[in-house]
């Protein structure tokens, strides 16, 4: 036996009456919390992982680059508004404006959360614990959605603070601002749910992070021109076609829910966008759960 293994025999009481501290194995008699606790702990752990917290410096670079970028956009919007007294970027517009960095964030972070565990084959260690397969999948999905939402909501909070201070119309104006802000973060939640459910599902298909990232990005980027081409056809097809692209889908939904012109002509098919969005999210989540039922333990 190598010298680094510490002897664990209980130490004998010493003659002076004192007791030598026992460094032997101690059984655990404290509380054992169940599945719910484990799920929450996994959720928090994964949310931290999304931003590279508790991980190497290398893993922090990309998420914080994106965080920096979205805050720069928000700060510029605040500064311009304070100077010119004009709203150049509304809360709703903010989410649509930073679409590309958001997509990259999803393509990098979703594989970070699920592909890495597949790659290192750590799943049997989770599934041999009280946590169930569904719990694991849902905790990961919740973490991705929260990270995505925080990325959208935190800069909007900054915009809210800047907006309230630059308004001159007192309490009523501040309340209007807050309502706009709530609309903005509500829309951010819709985007976060739609994007994350597809992102996590796609990322869970491969253990290779690069492959997963490429698949996630490809699904978004390839459907964009297809939807654009179909839109040029006009008519009913042109008004419904955007649903095939997640970015267009949420913008169409935004146009319907918030009556904002987003460059997507949804005609009077708004309800269809809602149904498609709800059905798609349900399908993505179901497929994700099926995926984790099948994955080898």
């Amino acid at each position, binding site marked *: 036996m190598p010298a680094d293994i510490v002897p664990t025999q209980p130490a004998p009481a010493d003659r002076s009456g004192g007791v030598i501290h026992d460094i032997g194995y101690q059984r655990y008699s*404290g509380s*054992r919390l*169940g599945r719910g606790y484990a799920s929450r*702990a*996994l959720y928090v752990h994964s949310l931290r992982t999304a931003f590279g917290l508790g*991980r190497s410096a290398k893993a922090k670079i990309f998420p914080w680059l994106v965080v920096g970028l979205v805050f720069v956009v928000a700060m510029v919007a605040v500064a311009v508004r304070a100077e010119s007294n004009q709203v150049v970027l509304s809360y709703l517009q903010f989410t649509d404006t930073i679409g590309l960095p958001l997509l990259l964030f999803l393509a990098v972070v979703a594989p970070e959360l699920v592909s890495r565990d597949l790659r*290192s084959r750590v799943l049997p260690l989770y599934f*041999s*614990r*009280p946590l169930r397969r569904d719990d694991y999948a849902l905790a990961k999905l919740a973490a991705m959605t929260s990270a995505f939402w925080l990325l959208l909501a935190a800069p909007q909070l900054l915009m809210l603070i800047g907006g309230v201070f630059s308004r001159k119309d007192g309490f009523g104006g501040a309340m209007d601002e807050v309502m706009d802000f709530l609309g903005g973060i509500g829309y951010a939640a819709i985007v976060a749910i739609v994007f994350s459910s597809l992102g996590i599902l796609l990322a869970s298909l491969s253990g290779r992070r690069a492959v997963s990232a490429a698949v996630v990005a490809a699904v978004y980027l390839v459907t964009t021109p297809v939807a654009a081409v179909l839109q040029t056809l006009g008519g009913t097809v042109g008004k419904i076609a955007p649903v095939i692209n997640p970015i267009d889908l949420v913008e169409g939904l935004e146009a319907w829910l918030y009556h904002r012109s987003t460059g997507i002509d949804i005609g009077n098919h708004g309800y269809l966008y809602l149904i498609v969005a709800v059905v798609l999210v349900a399908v993505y989540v179901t497929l994700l759960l099926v995926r984790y039922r099948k994955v080898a333990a």
Partner: protein
Amino acid sequence: MRPYSRGVALIETRSLTKRYPRVTALDAFTVDIEPGIIGLVGANGAGKSTLIKTLLGLSAPTSGSIRVLGLDPARDAEAIRARVGYMPEHDCLPPDMVAAEFVTHMARMSGLPRTAARERASEALRHVGLYEERYRQIGGYSTGMKQRVKLAQALVHDPDLLLLDEPTNGLDPAGRDAMLGLIHRIGSQFGISVMVCSHLLGEVERICDSLVAIDGGKLLRADRMSAMTVQRDVLAIEVDEGTEQLAEGLAAAGLGVSRDGRLLLVPLESDQTYDVIIGTVASLDLPLHRLEQRRHRVSELFSARPDPQEVETRAS
């Protein structure tokens, strides 16, 4: 209260059968296993991993019943998994995580509160001999250290039963000895029952209290180690000259003698066997060089199909 301290068997299976579309992995497998260190031996594909999965409630049996720590995996899988530690055969560690953090995380997944999880992770890593290196990234560890981290994560929540799948895989001889020593210590001093799966009978027989041999999903034999070895102990006798003479003399005295090179082997039936041998040697006036008790290796007990010795050679 430890579930099995109520006089319940550690593991109990009755006609346990698990069929996959193409293969029957467990075939009417019935066994009662008492607490202690248990060796589960069989060739690759004999059904060891399937048995572990059904014990953990990860795979439902096709038919038959199973009880682990007095609980039924079909109904109480969660309770069982909270009380069992599992160390898989394959690599299962994230290379870019620090060992202490990883083991802490796994402790929380087992339901330990944050502070307790951190303390027990440090303790578990100390017990497996990785205390100094615990703040290093797992990716930089040697194979032996990784095996220890795998053991630590299985041990961290203080389970009542440890399921170790091929724990010495990929280790050099010194690493194997250290790992076996560690497992023996856990099983004998920590009060935790350990089931060690291995295709290397020679390894597990050194540390186990009992042995379960499985082949083709069927139980070959399950017994306590003592029952397997004591009754088959033999005495090896070596004399400098007159080996033939002695063999005849011992046979005449009523002992079953067999030759093994320069040695004569005599089954040890009672203490009197010694007296008979000494008496015979003395009466023939032969120079006795050696007289020793030799434990029959358990492997010889499984001379039925498959020959574990052969399994062992093939595997190594």
